[in-house]
């Protein structure tokens, strides 16, 4: 066909896709949206709101701890703050934001139009949001949980924590774990079944591998904490005795179940960051990934081994030393895949042509900070050593080094990297450099002294400390450093707000990157790609032929996507994505109602059973405009099922 006809054809195609994949507008439309980019962005923004709230809590704690026997916060308020700070960071910020990066980027990186099970995606966002709202409503009405994010029993049990505070903790877990599990399932199915033809497993971008590993970890780890928090709720609400030693229960049962989840949890936060680091290093050295296979195997190994470490949180509980030694060995072993990755990245920086723009600065900062945190982790793997520093500020230093260095720095680097794709505008580069240095310096000033004060005997989770212990100077320095962190946070927000409106236009691929999301416009159109790509190599845009092949035959008048097979991404069938609908939102409201009511009465199950059934049936029931092939169509085309 002639060039003009081809252009007209493309324009018709584009308009049809715009109509088909349109994001519903209006007030009610906001609740019906199920496209992955919108939901992904909502998750990211909401997660950062929680990050700011948790940061404010941290700042208040640092204010209280700046001098001994301070009176800014009393013990009750302080204990609620440190508990909610931990819960917010772990459950409402870190895991959701990493999953959100996956929700936004994975469908784009694998060349499809939406995430699998988009209504589930939408449902999971509202469940997450309602859980967060419940927790903060509790905090602001002085019902905030106050027994730590780890909430050990019997302190958190019915005898020693009367009232509803701990129930808010236990139920927040239920909310956020339901949301996280839903997203994990979507990610697994998306990554396995929706990849563009040609993207066999060994051609998947490292970020996609990281999200796949993370999703599996979520699936295997979260049930343990759902069980443990359910047992806790049952003990508190209906008098069961899971954790009551007087009636055959066991206080350590909680610790085993919680940490069986809790240890993989931190790797769930960390592994996506490793994917971000690989993405940034490839782009900013302009070279294919160094040690791709080793990096993939390291991600998978990290995922597996992380399930065998949990007892290292329990070294002081008097368990037999022989058993504990196994966990020492496992906790040392997990340093190996991490080390392999660090070596591969340093090698990549060595041989490539690094451009030290903000995303890469955050990656270098990540290496400097995370490796220190990883090494303090190695020291904690030793039982005798741990028995001296467990439950002191040394541990607080360690996990902030690995979590902020290992996850937050890559995340912020990722924000600087992908913000242009998400909004069409670049973040301000000079402000980005200031942002990096402020955070890097501020982080070290705040958290390095904590190693020292922990080794000087300062326990953690204390609202104050005596004046004559020699801890005052370090605490003052840490509080001073926190000011820098606040400034860094403000800089990031300012940069985002300003650049969203007036940042430099980015174009499709401002960084010259290799992954598929950079082949479409910035921001991507509602249908992601005008023509679904066919992938020709591991670094899709760098290994693309002059006239790259595309997928043809996917309809543009229905929300159709191509389902391919797991190993080689060979096309299998076409699938219709559901049209936007209000039912996921309604189901989330009903779910939230059930969860919150069950804090107060076991009859919640009876009250909410019918609404839940109605909501889920409404969700599942086929809608107008979603009709697929019928038996009649099948009979009309003989032997069609052979295709």
């Amino acid at each position: 066909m002639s060039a003009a006809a081809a252009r007209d054809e493309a324009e018709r195609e584009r308009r049809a896709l715009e109509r088909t994949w349109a994001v519903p507008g209006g007030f009610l439309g906001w609740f019906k949206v199920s496209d992955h980019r919108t939901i992904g962005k909502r998750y990211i923004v909401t997660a950062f709101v929680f990050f700011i709230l948790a940061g404010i809590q941290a700042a208040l704690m640092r204010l209280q701890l700046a001098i001994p026997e301070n009176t800014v916060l009393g013990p009750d308020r302080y204990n609620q703050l440190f508990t909610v700070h931990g819960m917010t960071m772990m459950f409402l910020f870190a895991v959701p934001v990493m999953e959100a990066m996956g929700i936004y980027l994975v469908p784009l990186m694998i060349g499809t139009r939406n995430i699998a099970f988009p209504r589930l995606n939408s449902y999971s966002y509202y469940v997450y949001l309602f859980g967060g709202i419940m927790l903060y409503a509790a905090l602001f009405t002085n019902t905030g949980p106050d027994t730590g994010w780890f909430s050990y029993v019997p302190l958190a049990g019915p005898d020693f924590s009367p009232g509803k505070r701990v129930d808010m903790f236990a139920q927040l877990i239920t909310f956020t774990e339901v949301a996280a599990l839903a997203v994990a399932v979507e990610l697994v199915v998306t990554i396995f079944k929706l990849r563009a033809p040609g993207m066999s497993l060994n051609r998947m971008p490292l970020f996609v591998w990281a999200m796949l590993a993370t999703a599996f970890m979520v699936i295997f780890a979260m049930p343990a904490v759902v069980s443990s928090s359910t047992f806790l709720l049952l003990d508190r609400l209906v008098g069961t005795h899971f954790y009551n030693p007087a009636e055959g229960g066991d206080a350590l049962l909680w610790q085993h179940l919680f940490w069986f989840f809790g240890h993989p949890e931190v790797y769930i936060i960390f592994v996506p960051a490793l994917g971000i680091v690989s993405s940034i290093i490839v782009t900013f050295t302009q070279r294919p990934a160094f040690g791709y296979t080793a990096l993939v195997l390291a991600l998978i190994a990290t995922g597996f081994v992380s399930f065998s470490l949990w007892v290292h949180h329990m070294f002081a509980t008097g368990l037999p030393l022989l058993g504990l030694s196994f966990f020492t060995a496992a906790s040392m072993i997990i340093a190996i895949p991490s080390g392999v990755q660090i070596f591969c990245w340093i090698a990549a920086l060595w041989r490539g042509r690094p451009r030290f723009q903000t995303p890469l600065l955050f990656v270098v900062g990540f290496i400097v900070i995370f490796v220190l945190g990883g090494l303090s982790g190695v020291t904690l793997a030793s039982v005798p050593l741990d028995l001296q520093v467990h439950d002191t500020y040394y541990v607080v230093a360690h996990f902030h080094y690995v979590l902020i260095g290992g996850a937050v720095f890559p995340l912020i680097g990722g924000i600087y990297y992908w913000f242009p794709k998400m909004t069409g505008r670049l973040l301000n580069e000079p402000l980005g450099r200031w942002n990096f240095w402020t955070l890097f310096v501020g982080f070290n000033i705040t958290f390095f002294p904590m190693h020292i004060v922990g080794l000087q005997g300062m326990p953690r989770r204390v609202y104050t400390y005596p004046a004559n212990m020699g801890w005052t100077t370090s605490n003052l320095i840490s509080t001073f450093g926190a000011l820098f962190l606040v400034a860094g946070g403000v800089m990031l927000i300012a940069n985002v707000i300003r650049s969203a409106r007036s940042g430099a236009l980015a174009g499709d691929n401002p960084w010259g990157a290799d992954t598929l999301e950079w082949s479409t416009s910035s921001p991507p159109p509602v249908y992601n790609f005008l023509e679904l790509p066919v992938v020709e190599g591991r670094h899709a845009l760098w290994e693309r032929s002059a006239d790259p092949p595309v997928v043809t035959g996917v309809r543009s008048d229905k929300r159709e996507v191509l389902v391919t097979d797991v190993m080689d991404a060979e096309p299998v069938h076409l699938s219709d994505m559901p049209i936007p609908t209000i039912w996921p939102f309604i189901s989330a409201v009903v779910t939230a109602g059930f969860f919150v009511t069950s804090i107060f009465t076991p009859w919640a199950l009876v009250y909410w059973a019918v609404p839940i059934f109605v909501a889920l049936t409404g969700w599942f029931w086929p809608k107008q405009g979603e009709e697929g092939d019928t038996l009649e169509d099948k009979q009309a085309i003989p032997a069609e099922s052979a295709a």
Partner: protein
Amino acid sequence: MNRPAANVDVAALPDHAFGHHGMIWWGTVSFMVIEGTMFITVLVTYYYLRLRVPFWPPSVADPSLTWGTVNTLILLVSCIPNHLAKKAAEDYDLGRVRLWLVVAMAFGLAFLVVRAFEFASLAVWWDTNAYGSVVWTLMGLHTTHLATDFLDTGVLTVLMFTRHGRELRRFVDISENGLYWYFVVASWIPIYLTVYFAPRWL
């Protein structure tokens, strides 16, 4: 890398696929893995608590075997109409699908009713001691799965009697629902052995 490559045309592909070729199977299997892990966690809790005390069950009688065994048989036999419904779906046979789904629902009703009798024969309350707590939780967790399986099979059954039942995608839903039914039955076996026999054998 700059060799001309052909476009991939997928227009002729069907709009659904059974088993691991399609997406629903993967979603169902993921859900099974999650729920299975939950079951395993509670079972591990049972044995962990068992190891903490010298006598089991502590200070109460063993649960009576009758209703539990009856229900196990009902569950196992229910796999037959379930299998037949699944096969009928894969053959796109609407008539047989409708028949066997209704039969499966009858079994579903039976095992829910018998489950109520099982609870009555446990010889312990959830707040008597930790043993009672974990036994009621195991049974309660499984009953929730029975109930939701029954209800969602019910919705699907009704659906297959409407005009939507003629859509080919629905047959995939029936097939994957059948898979989930197997899971609910299979997950019962270790729970049955634990609740009814662990007190007798351990």
